[in-house]
């Protein structure tokens, strides 16, 4: 099995060459996994394959299995997810799922974050491998280091076309501030604040302040 310092050097080399796959293979070798898959768990739920960042899983497995798994994982309670970040979760594949021979039916899923992007590392192992919790925890942070360099990690606000001032207003509203209070805090007029709010609700197609705040929190804008 690959030693820790050797792995860190391999990650350096992979990043030198901007080779996402090579770095992930090295992480796999470090934990003793056979196949890896990295996917975003914060993307739109309807795109089956669009959220997969990189993988060397057999393609049919990605299509039949991975998408559903990521979706299920995305429903996890937020506090539990935060407290359990980098902690590996083990589960068994469905009985009717066809796996390549010699692969264990027990897979591992490890949540991690890179910037504001939420991701999961999903690993498949050979039957009979002994795993180290420590190495699996390491793998999560290493995946953040490595895959994070290839994933668009910020900018949900760009997708919604909100300006910095508008997001600032949203942040204060979510803390319960009124337009008057916000105008005092930021140092602009109350009318300007209300204009920002109107603009926000138009851009996000929301009908109430509550809905706009809910959207912003769900999208990690505030």
């Amino acid at each position: 099995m690959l030693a820790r310092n050797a792995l860190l050097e391999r990650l350096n080399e992979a990043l030198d060459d901007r080779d996402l796959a090579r770095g992930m293979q090295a992480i796999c070798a470090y934990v003793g996994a056979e196949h890896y898959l990295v996917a975003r768990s914060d993307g739109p739920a309807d795109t089956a394959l669009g959220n997969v960042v990189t993988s060397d899983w057999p393609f049919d497995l990605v299509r039949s299995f991975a998408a559903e798994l990521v979706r299920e994982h995305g429903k996890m309670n937020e506090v539990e997810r935060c407290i359990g970040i980098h902690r590996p979760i083990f589960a068994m594949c469905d009985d009717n799922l066809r796996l390549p021979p010699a692969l264990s039916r027990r897979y591992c899923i490890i949540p991690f974050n890179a910037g504001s992007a939420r991701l999961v590392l999903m690993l498949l192992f050979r039957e009979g491998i002994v795993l180290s919790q420590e190495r699996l925890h390491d793998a999560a942070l290493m995946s953040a280091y490595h895959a994070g360099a290839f994933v668009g990690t910020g900018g949900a606000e760009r997708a919604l076309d909100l300006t910095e001032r508008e997001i600032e207003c949203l942040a204060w509203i979510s803390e319960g501030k009124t337009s008057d209070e916000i105008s005092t805090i930021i140092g602009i007029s109350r009318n300007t604040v209300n204009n920002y709010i109107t603009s926000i609700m138009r851009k996000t197609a929301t009908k109430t302040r509550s809905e706009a705040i809910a959207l912003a929190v769900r999208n990690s804008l505030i």
Partner: protein
Amino acid sequence: MTLQMHAAIAASERLGGVEPLVDGHEIGNAPTMAADLIPRLCAMRRVVGATGFAVLSCSGGGSRIAGKLVPVLADFDRPDDEADEDALARGAAGRALVAHLDCSSLPLVWAGPDDDGPTLHADCRQLVVRTRMADAPMAGIAFPVRLGSLGNGLVVFEGEGLALAAGPLFDLHRLCYRVMTDLLKLEMRKAAPRKSLSDRELACLQWAGDGFKSEAIADKLGLSVHTVNAYLGSATAKLDAVNRIQAIAKAIRLGFIA
């Protein structure tokens, strides 16, 4: 999964994962308050050869624009008029730290006004981000931690003559994650609503967050508008919020509603 795998995982879980072992001594048991983490942070400071540390928590889900850094724990050996941790949290240094937290998972390293910054071993070359910090009093390193919508921030170590290699740096980063996770657990224990929210209260919050006004929610649930507003009011009080909008934001962040 083989029996061996079960046993190995069970054993390491019994040990509670990694307990920071520095100089052969285990640092502390499960913390009951934030200050319990200080011995751990002091040990980490010794390992990196720094003179000061600060744990900076980032509000606003770690957002680059809305995020504000708040010092949670700090100890700088130098007696100074202005608290070093506040200097780091605000101003240009604070903005640089928040910007880094938003876009990178790598440790951030900077030089002081009079030096070239920490000496980095060649094995760190792609695993660290170097920058210049306009108002930093001295060289330092910041480890970004992102747990999700809660518990984000940076653990900062400051000092002259720091020398770092990839292995120890990585270990420290893992320990920083442990510190922030333990802090979040403490915060959750304090912040848990005294009485848990009822199904009706949760339903009203969810509908309100989905854009429905009280009349519409009343229709959906077969209640009067006044009852709906009462449920929203009691949910607001339980979540320790000033109005229903803040209540909705808190409920989503805590995962009570989607």
